[in-house]
């Protein structure tokens, strides 16, 4: 039997060696998230795990830029954006990124048992060695020379006479690439062997270390020449996974990067986990000294065009990843998301008749309401069901209003002019709960459930693609009907709920918080008037309350305050709860705490943003002291 691959499960294409595949799968729209100024000051990128930091950094490595330039016809949108950001010109790359992963060894230095002053110096020396090695490799790559064989062809020439630059060159081993490489390898080997020693180590004999990052000066204050010819491209340091450093190491490194004397372009990426709970609960800010990009926050920028843009990026990623495989397996020339059938076909005449009779019953005895129901009963089966259920919501709302207001506002007003889109969404949600009409279906739902997280998106697409492969194996069309889509999405949601305790340390408080937020959201979303249409999927605390939570003294006096502070920090760091501080509502500002959207389908909650219930922080803190059982919907088994 022919075997089929699921491109969303396999990440082999993301490996360094397959740079063409990497470029092919990357959505060029990710570059639109970058701020304008990224070269002349430190640029800090933050996201939850799987937010796309590494992908973004890899786009700027020497080999990726070279490949994109060489095959610019294959990647026109990507090249256009790289040029717009000044990373590439008509002749080739103008930058070459030195991608270094900070997860390797550095934390071990801090755990080695060496005295603090020794560990700090070893940390900087090892990082220097790796930056130098990476710079040599990158420069040679740009000239299509071989690493390490041609290292001696490189020379770093100081742009001006400066003692500090000469001292840095001396500490790093010289101006020539061969000398630099030999010194870097020797330093790295010496340190790594010490760290990996199983027998006792005499740390006092470890005399050499670095008091600062000398490589930043080498890269920033020297021109690179290869075989006597100046390199046109400028280096950019790309430091990834900063969250893996110990807090003192992170502080040391950020201090070095923020030094205004440094002229090298330098990017630093970390997960939210690296931040303290205080940092997580305040806004990420950029300033004169550095630029910050928080990927998820940038992706859900309040402008609708910003959101649409990121949604399109995700669709592109899905279509690009699946495109080749679908073409080969089906020869149909359709894109991945073209196979997602809309929920329209799932409405039967029986459902419409049931909704119609319920709507007529709700309107009985009131001419205006009866007129609305007549107006609503038009269009396709799907449209009729949604409109009729919307009419029921409106009738319920108007019935609950004072009589006078009713006649002032609804008499003779056409139904369609009274019907906002969020009420239609609420109606769809009601139809889902009452008649099993799929709500979580279609490309928009898949993109929304991703919660602005690429990894979450790819995992969900992998689940969906697996079912498509099942059909392909049986020689059937891989189209996914809406019921199937909803089942897969709700199963993924169920799995995510079960994985939360695995993802978050000491997750009991986080789970207590999630259960309460879900219970409130369920209760509000079930109200027949749909007052927060389409439904609630979060809570909010006032910004004043947030300030109380951030203040250690107030927090200490608040029962459960300390636990709430810790739990919120952990949940936000792992993207289980999405915080939106400074959200403007009714002449005031609140911090909204949304459920990760992948948590919503299991509880049958809406995927939209903007609907939440405000709660005093004291009440929220007390939830942790008195955890309740999870809402029933969360304990039900999905088959």
């Amino acid at each position, binding site marked *: 039997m022919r075997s089929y*691959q*699921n491109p969303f*499960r*396999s*990440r*082999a294409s*993301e*490996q*360094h*060696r397959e740079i063409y595949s990497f470029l092919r799968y990357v959505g060029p729209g990710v570059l639109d998230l970058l701020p304008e100024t990224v070269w002349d000051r430190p640029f800090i990128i933050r996201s939850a795990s799987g937010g796309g930091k590494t992908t973004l950094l890899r786009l700027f490595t020497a080999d990726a830029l070279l490949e994109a330039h060489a095959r610019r016809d294959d990647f026109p949108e990507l090249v256009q954006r790289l040029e717009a950001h000044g990373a590439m010109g008509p002749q080739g790359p103008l930058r070459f990124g030195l991608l270094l992963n900070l*997860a*390797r*060894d550095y*934390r*071990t230095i*801090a*755990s*080695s*048992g060496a005295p603090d002053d020794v560990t700090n110096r070893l940390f900087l020396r090892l990082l220097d060695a790796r930056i130098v*090695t990476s710079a040599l490799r990158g420069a040679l790559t740009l000239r299509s020379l071989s690493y390490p064989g041609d290292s001696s062809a490189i020379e770093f020439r100081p742009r001006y006479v400066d003692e500090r630059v000469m001292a840095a060159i001396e500490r790093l081993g010289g101006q020539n690439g061969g000398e630099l490489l030999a010194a870097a*390898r020797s330093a*790295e*080997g010496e340190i*790594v062997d010490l*760290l*990996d*020693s*199983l*027998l*006792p*180590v005499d740390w006092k004999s470890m005399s050499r270390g670095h008091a600062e990052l000398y490589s930043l000066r080498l890269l920033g204050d020297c021109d690179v020449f290869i075989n006597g010819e100046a390199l046109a491209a400028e280096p950019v340091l790309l430091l990834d996974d900063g969250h*893996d450093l110990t807090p003192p190491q992170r502080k040391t490194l950020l201090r070095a990067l923020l030094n205004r004397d440094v002229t090298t372009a330098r990017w630093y990426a970390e997960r939210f986990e690296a931040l303290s709970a205080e940092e997580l609960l305040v806004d990420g800010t950029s300033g004169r000294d550095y630029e910050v990009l928080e990927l998820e926050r940038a992706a859900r920028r309040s402008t609708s065009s910003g959101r649409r843009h990121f949604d399109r990026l995700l669709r592109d990623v899905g279509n690009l990843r699946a495109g080749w495989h679908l073409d080969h397996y089906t020869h149909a020339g359709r894109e991945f998301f073209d196979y997602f059938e809309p929920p329209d076909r799932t409405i039967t005449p029986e459902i419409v008749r049931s909704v119609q009779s319920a709507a007529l019953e709700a309107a009985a005895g009131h001419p205006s309401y009866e007129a609305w129901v007549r107006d609503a009963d038009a269009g396709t089966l799907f449209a009729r069901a949604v409109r009729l259920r919307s009419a029921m919501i409106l009738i319920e709302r108007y019935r609950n209003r004072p009589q006078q207001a009713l006649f002032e506002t609804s008499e003779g007003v056409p139904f369609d002019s009274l019907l906002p889109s969020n009420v239609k969404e609420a109606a769809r949600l009601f139809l889902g709960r009452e008649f099993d009409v799929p709500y979580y279906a279609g490309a928009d739902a898949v993109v929304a459930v991703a919660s602005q997280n690429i990894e979450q998106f790819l995992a969900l697409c*992998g689940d969906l693609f697996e079912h498509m492969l099942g059909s392909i194996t049986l020689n059937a069309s891989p189209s996914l009907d809406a019921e199937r889509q909803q089942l897969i999405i709700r199963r993924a949601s169920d799995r995510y709920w079960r994985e939360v*305790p*695995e*993802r978050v*340390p000491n997750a009991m408080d986080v789970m207590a918080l999630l259960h309460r937020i879900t219970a409130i959201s369920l209760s509000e979303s079930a109200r027949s008037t749909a007052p927060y249409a389409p439904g609630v999927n979060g809570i909010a605390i006032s910004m004043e309350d947030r300030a109380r939570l951030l203040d250690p003294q107030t927090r200490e006096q608040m029962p459960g305050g300390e636990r709430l502070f810790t739990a919120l920090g952990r949940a936000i760091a792992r993207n289980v709860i999405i915080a939106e501080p400074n959200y403007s509502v009714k002449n005031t500002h609140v911090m909204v705490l949304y459920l990760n959207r992948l948590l919503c389908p299991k509880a049958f909650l809406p995927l939209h943003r903007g609907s939440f219930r405000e709660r005093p922080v004291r009440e929220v803190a007390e939830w942790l002291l008195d955890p309740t059982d999870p809402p029933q919907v969360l304990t039900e088994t999905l088959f």
Partner: protein
Amino acid sequence: MAAEGGAGPRWLDYVLATGGDCDQLLSAAAGLGRLVLLYGDGFDPRSLQTVRRLAALDLPTVVVQIPLPQGDGRGATTELARRNREQLLDIANAGMEIVNLDPVLDADRLTVGSRISRNLIESGIVGEEDAVIVDASALPTRIFFPLIGTLLALGRRSGKGELLVMVSECPELDRLISSGGVEDPGTITGFANGFSRDADPERVRVWAPVLGEQAGPQLEALFELLQPQDVYPVLPFPARDPRRADDLVLEHRSLLFERFEVDPNNFLYVSESNPFDTYRALAGLDVRYRSLLSPVGVPEIVVSTHASKTLGIGVCLAAIEREMPVVNAGPSRYGIAEIPEAEWVENASTLSCIWLHGTPFR
């Protein structure tokens, strides 16, 4: 007791005893130097089995308690750990000296094993001429690997001393112990073996994980870390349950075939009960790969273990001999729902004793 002969790798001749035969090896070792037992001071009900044997044989021993996390505080872990400590005092006879090792608080989880190992030597608790027994039964991989590595290095340097490893296997008890979460993946300190040095994208990296039940999250985390070009999963066969290898493939099928893109010809089969079979298979893989790829560079074979301690010991020995990096991403918490009967644990467990260094090899 089994002994095989022949030239070649260090442990081609090996000394392995099971059940009651272990007593002969323990008694023999006691006659060759001061007996020092290193065991995990945690909640695992198997942790005291070797102490009981030594007490029954009336062998004077220095019993060193290696501090371990006491589970996640839920279920019976705290109570079991307390009971284990009390029972040690009941078991220990007049000839036993108990040493409580201080926990290493400033080390991360992958470094703590090497710090404990170094401390044992620096503090003189373990000397070059001692007959040291490492009871791996209750010790996590990230601790017993560095212990074995350090003691072998010490023995190799001095040319003295004895090293034995005890392990008590009980699959039924393993099923009672729950685990969850994934710690950050990385190399075990002492077993990096050049893994992180000059990471070269052109270098061929091959990963050989010994598969175990419920290890999916750990395998996934390690795959992300390694991004290997090729994966050689190791399966336990022959095994007490002849379908175990099939069940493991079934359990991890999505990861193995879709995510890791494993070639079905790549599976390695090793005996579940003989650590030296795992040792030979992995060392052989390293030899073959190096010889095959020598014209184009130096491949890097990385190993990890997610199964029983017996198989883990084989991984440890292969890594030491062939200088292969060992990666680990253990569960972030352990727990046990109920306290099993001590007699049941004793009867259901199989104790093995492996002599790794010293007199049999001189």
